[in-house]
């Protein structure tokens, strides 16, 4: 695959290693502080009943992100 | 009709009005804390 996958594209229960993110400085900082760093493992748990937001598991915590934000966070290409 | 009541009531009203105005129109920094906090302290 040439195009890097964003983490919205994961299937339910699928894990991925984080790569880059393409978010504004302040938003990106907060997510990095929460552990969304390159190399960390995220797992897509479920989508909300209306499709957004999306629940992820990261380092033992569950976080929900909106699709628009999560679409700017990419998985490492395997 | 008790006479003293007809001046006591307006007096209570005026005092109340005074307290209300004083509480709400004093400098805004202090007005923001109507719960007990360290209002009296100077910045």
């Amino acid at each position, binding site marked *: 695959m040439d195009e890097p996958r964003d983490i919205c594209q994961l299937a339910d229960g699928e894990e991925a290693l984080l790569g880059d993110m393409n*978010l*504004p400085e*302040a*938003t990106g*900082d*907060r*997510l*990095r*502080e*929460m*552990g969304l*760093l*390159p190399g960390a493992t995220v797992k897509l748990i*479920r989508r*909300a*009943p*209306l*499709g*957004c*937001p999306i*629940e992820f598991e*990261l*380092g*033992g*915590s*569950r*976080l*929900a*992100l*909106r699709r628009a*934000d999560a679409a700017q966070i990419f998985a490492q290409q395997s | *009709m*008790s006479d*003293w*009541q*007809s001046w*006591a*009531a*307006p007096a*209570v*009203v005026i005092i*109340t*009005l005074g*307290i*209300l105005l004083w509480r*709400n129109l004093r400098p*805004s*920094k*202090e007005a*923001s*804390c*109507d*719960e*007990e*906090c*360290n*209002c009296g*302290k*100077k*910045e």
Partner: protein
Amino acid sequence: MNSPRTFALVGNPNTGKTTLFNALTGLRQKVANYPGVTVEKKTGTGRNRHGEAFAVIDLPGAYSLEPKSPDEEVTRAVLHGERPDTPRPDAVICLVDAGNLERHLYLATQVMELDLPVIVVVNKTDTAEERGVTVATKKLAERLGVPVVPMQANERVGMEALQVALSAEPVKANWKPVEGDTAARYKAIGKLIEGAVARDGEERLTPSDRWDGVLVHPVFGWLVLLGILGGLFFTLFSLAGYPMDLIDGTFGWLSSQVEARMADGDLRALITEGIIGGVGGVVIFLPQILILFFFIGLMENTGYLARVSFMMDRLMAGVGLNGKAFVPLLSSYACAIPGIMATRTMESARDRLITTLVAPITSCSARLPVYVMLIALMLPVGTAGQKALVMLGLYVLSIVGVYAFAYVFNRTLDRKEQTLFVLELPAYQRPSWREIGLQMYDRGKIFLRRAGTVILGLSIVLWALTTYPKTDSEDGSEQLAHSAAGRMGKAIEPVIEPLGYDWKMGIGLVASFAAREVFVSTMSIIYTGEEQDEEKTIRTSMAAEKRADGQPAYNVRTCLSLLVFYVFAMQCLSTVAVTRRETNSWKWAILQVVYLTGFAYVAALATYQIGGFFLS
């Protein structure tokens, strides 16, 4: 004697900070605001094993000491000793979650670099173990050289060990400040916990996952939510009636006691009608406020609230709100004051502001008596079903109003900050009744304090407006017409005439600017000459009221117009005061009054005028 040692409680949101704070301090706590910002300041005192008192400050939840919200800024400033209103703490209790030590130690290690002694509390060891994570706290304690206490704060497991740590001389951690960025800190933390955290790596379904399978299920999730909301509203509007009647009766008894003991006169009228009547009219909402906070506390305490935000976010996003605005708006259906206070849980100042601005449109319970009276007048021979339908229509109108105005504000307010929606979904846990009770007690206390101060003052002023200047007439309604409020009613008559109101209704409108429910009692004074307990008689005389042209004053058109006016108009001084306090500026409070009342006027005008085409 030395002043007691002060411990600051620091941790990420959802770590169980409040639970631990309550466990340490019990009822010996104070809730206030940090001056200048709308961040809650919680302080309390506890006793250590030597019987010495210590103070605890529960600092707002934070993810990092590089602040990104007003809450986090307060935490940072207090820890640096930069807030003049709060002395720098002597030591810090860092609360971390055993299930995700890396992330929680991010903040904790930043705190260790502040040159303050620390105690580390590793909380929620039970839920971590359910996920196959065990933390060797002894190893961490050896490496850091400070007490590291494993706990389950909600079950009070580990309190004993924490008490031991609190009773010893606090020490600074053996931690070398991290140079570099976020990644460097995570690397250093990784080294610190190496070999101290064991994960069995097994895939498993925790009890929390099973709950989620139902509670955020695309079908069952909504059913459960609807059921809970249904239960909430049922309790709010039917069961609450019993304690409310009791309060009503108590205040009635109180005023009859005063009447029996005092000679007739102005002061007696002030005490019975102004003070007892006015304060009683507000205190009567206490049961509803307590019920509301019971439900919110229960949902928050168990972790269900985060799931509600998770499900509702999409519906709120369309108008620029987020899922976290759902609860403040829901609360506003009982009363906008706790609703606006509940916006504090939202990180984004902009979202907080929009939610605060639209919250008064929700149909709070103070509108209910007005609705009930007007609907009865409008449909004198209507069935209960028809009346309920009108009531439902008013609720729908208020929901549409909330959405529409949130949309407008979202479009017009400038977007200075980048809003990011990150919602943590903590593992479910058993509710702590004690904690829910404490929260209800806190909220009830704040509410009663308001009733005893601001509301008391306003009731006295309102009483004066309807009493002075006096006439010699013994007739109550003539006296009212002569009073300042009566004159105001007449003065605004030309303005409200196009809406279908006369000056008597004008008095009701003027009086309800302090509080909506006053409309009912004012109307009863106007139409019966004196206050009457039996609503029936008021209704009959109101229904009999005629206009100059012989038409009934309260025809369908006028009633509809009044109802629409009451849906939108900002007629609650307490809400104005809360908005003023929560936004820290008169600007937003005044904007709220102007836009809501202005829109109410236009909407009522449209209702009356358009109604003219269909109704006589």
